[in-house]
């Protein structure tokens, strides 16, 4: 169990804080003195999962590093909504560079710190899925391959949101974006394309790779803390719903992320040195339609001319994930060999 289990049943065992727990067992977000790395007044949309995920991750990283942290940011919503010159929401040392080079800039910062002998100061690189999976990918792979001492965090909202919702290598099949319209026999994004960067990161055999979502704060905080226990290249892939790009209600951000996990569409796991060491089990598998239906980007699969065949293909993806990662509570955890 990655997250310390709460040993007794009590009101709201899975909530953010809990007055019945000792303060050191509570989440970072429950702490009235948390860093609030990303402060109020930022211009993210109502209910933005990325803004929430970034504060979760960086506040946890601040606590894990004793506030000795520098963050490097790729262009994307996270940068644009937080820092319109000369204002910023960041309450931590923070550097912006370009859309495609955040991993390389992070490497540079880490190298500079090393040269200065400041091994106490740690580096986080971060960006959206476009900046990570697509344009920044060569820099990222290089950072992994050199095993540079950086935790890179990708906030995956499954498209280029900042420029108006274009497809990325992380956009899921059948989803509509401005560049994958609901037309033709295979409406929306194509099946069989895109890439799974957590698995690619594992193939680099870096010390630590993990996935997380904004629906499980304690798990996310644990993974940041755990990542900071390693030196070398580490990768955290955080699933962050985007109400604007996905066409979901702003209040549904957490619920949608929870459904992505409970359907099996977004496997939550962690891996050390290329091997899966733990997965988050699904208490009860939810059919993918429950996840897809509330999202306008999948509207063409339902309604007047529904596409149950497409929904069935998405269900197959979920079922495969469940098999592959051993996500169901009853199934045994995958052994090192079987793991993806």
């Amino acid at each position, binding site marked *: 169990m990655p997250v310390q289990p*709460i040993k*007794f*049943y*009590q*009101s*709201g*065992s*899975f*909530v*953010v*804080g*809990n*007055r*019945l727990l000792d303060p050191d067992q*509570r*989440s970072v*977000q*429950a702490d*009235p003195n948390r860093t*609030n790395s*990303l*402060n*109020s*007044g*930022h*211009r*993210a949309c*109502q*209910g*933005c*999962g990325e*803004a*929430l995920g970034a*504060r979760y991750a960086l506040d946890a990283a601040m606590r894990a590093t004793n506030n000795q942290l520098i963050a490097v940011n790729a262009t994307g919503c996270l940068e644009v909504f*937080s820092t319109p*010159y*000369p*204002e*910023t*929401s960041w309450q931590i040392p923070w550097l912006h560079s370009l859309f495609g080079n955040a991993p390389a800039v992070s490497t540079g910062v880490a190298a500079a710190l090393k040269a200065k002998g400041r091994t106490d100061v740690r580096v986080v690189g971060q960006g959206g899925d476009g900046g990570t999976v697509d344009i920044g990918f060569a820099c990222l792979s290089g950072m992994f391959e050199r095993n540079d001492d950086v935790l890179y965090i990708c906030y995956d909202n499954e498209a280029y949101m900042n420029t108006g919702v274009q497809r990325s290598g992380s956009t899921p099949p059948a989803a509509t974006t401005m560049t994958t319209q609901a037309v033709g026999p295979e409406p929306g994004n194509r099946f069989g394309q895109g890439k799974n960067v957590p698995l690619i990161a594992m193939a680099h055999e870096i010390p630590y790779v993990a996935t997380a979502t904004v629906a499980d*704060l304690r798990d996310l905080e644990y993974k940041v803390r755990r990542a900071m226990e390693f030196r070398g290249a580490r990768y955290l892939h955080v699933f962050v719903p985007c*109400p604007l790009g996905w066409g979901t*209600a*702003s*209040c*549904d*951000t*957490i*619920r949608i992320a*929870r459904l992505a996990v409970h359907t099996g569409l977004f496997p939550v796991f962690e891996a050390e040195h290329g091997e899966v060491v733990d997965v988050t089990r699904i208490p009860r598998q939810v059919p993918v339609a429950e996840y897809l239906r509330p999202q306008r980007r999948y509207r063409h699969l339902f309604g007047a001319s529904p596409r149950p065949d497409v929904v069935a293909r998405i269900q197959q993806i979920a079922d495969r994930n469940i098999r592959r990662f051993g996500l169901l509570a009853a199934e045994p955890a995958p052994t090192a060999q079987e793991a993806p």
Partner: protein
Amino acid sequence: MELPFAITLDVGSSLANHTGSWRTERPVYVNRLAPCNQACPAGEDIQGWLYDAEDGGYRAAWERIMADNPFPAIMGRICYRPCQTACNRGTLDEAVGINSVERFLGDEAIRSGWTVPVDAEPTGRRVLVVGAGPAGLSTAYHLTRLGHQVTVRDAGDKPGGMMRYGIPKYRLPREVLDAEVGRILDLGVRLELGQRVDDVLAARDEGGFDAVFLAVGAQIGHRAYIPAGDSARILDAVSLLRDVADGEPPQLGRRVVVYGGGNTAMDAARSAKRLGATDAVVVYRRTQDRMPAHPSELAEALAEGVVVRWLSTISQADSGTVLVEKMRLDETGFPQPTGEFEELQADTVVLALGQDVDSSLLAAAPGVAVDAGRVTVGTDLMTGAPGIFAGGDMVPADRTVTTAVGHGRLAARHIDAWLRGVRYQPAPVLPLATFEALHTHYYADAPRTVRPRLDDARRTTGFEEIVGGLDEETALFEARRCLSCGNCFECDNCYGMCPDNAVIKLGPGNRYAFDYDYCKGCGICVAECPCGAIVMEPEET
């Protein structure tokens, strides 16, 4: 400040950007009425005292019960727990064992000698309470805490009413009853025993009382005509139980037939077993689903070997036998005779066909109405005679200790207001915290704890208490199963999950506030509040 090369402006904070102006709806913290609280006839704040108990605040929890109900240890034994039937957790796994936590708190208070203060200044007003059952004692307790001087007058030798002379001690040990009644008397209530009141107005005027509360109960066993031979032995259940309570149980013989289907019938049959009857047969004219006895009472009786003859009436009683006629239910669910008879062995027949009210003490009071044997009262529990209030079994309502206690609480507030020449205004009722208002995803599965029970063999040999109490650990576990329906329990979900840091944490016990300068109105806090304590409201424009 000197700016670096190519920089023309200082770094500013985004706090300058008041994103609250984007909002079209605003989140607002609310309290809703927990279903347990709604269901409690005694008006307890159950959700509130479970919250106190959850972190080990047993004394605070007990005091919160005592604000409404002076009998936590009694309640924890004999209340029929409508709260648990209503509990939202029942939809999730199993209802919270509210009653067993209440008992733990009540027993803890007795063990530790906890008391409550009378904080009110003496008012100098005097109130007469007639009847020292739960309704009368509860009224006396609350009136005393409000500063009035109360005299309780009862015809019996000991206080408690049906709690002493009806409910057998295997369900309510007398030490518990004495402890909780004694605590009320210690507040300064004057108790006059062995004094039957025959004319309420005379009693009021002779004693110079400013108001009267009547709680004489329903003490007379209802008689039904049964053709009976001279040597047939027929008792009524109320007298039987009273004699048992007095320590003078009658000889019943080996085979006892109890006629009736209520809780009194169950207690009579179970007591008969304990008095040595080998057969205790309950004869009831309808079917199990229509039986007025509480299902738990029936289950306990059956577990002790009591047998029930459903759809049966007694048509004749003779020495050693009764003739039973089989019934069938008609379309309206009413039992109809079938003409089929059967003989049962019976050394004694016990009639448990309900109890009637003796309202003769009101005969001389003008304006008092009696309907279907019960004294008519208004919502303020006042009879037609000004200043004469009534409650408990003698008025139309459920006949339970809990209802009687609730009447006492309500009557005390109305009497207090009446004495001051005003009308008591109850607080407005909050909207109900329905199961749909909760987000139960945040609660761990937790089946409920079962209280230890005497094994069946040991049960019927004596009047020892059957159901044990919970130890502290299990009581705490049980309290923590509460979902806190409709009332913030400071879980930090809103504080932690706001993408805009627009929730201010006010510290333990003080909950949260919204920072409307930055709240964009996304509604995540509403959607993720486990207990339904936040709602969205349209923004005023």
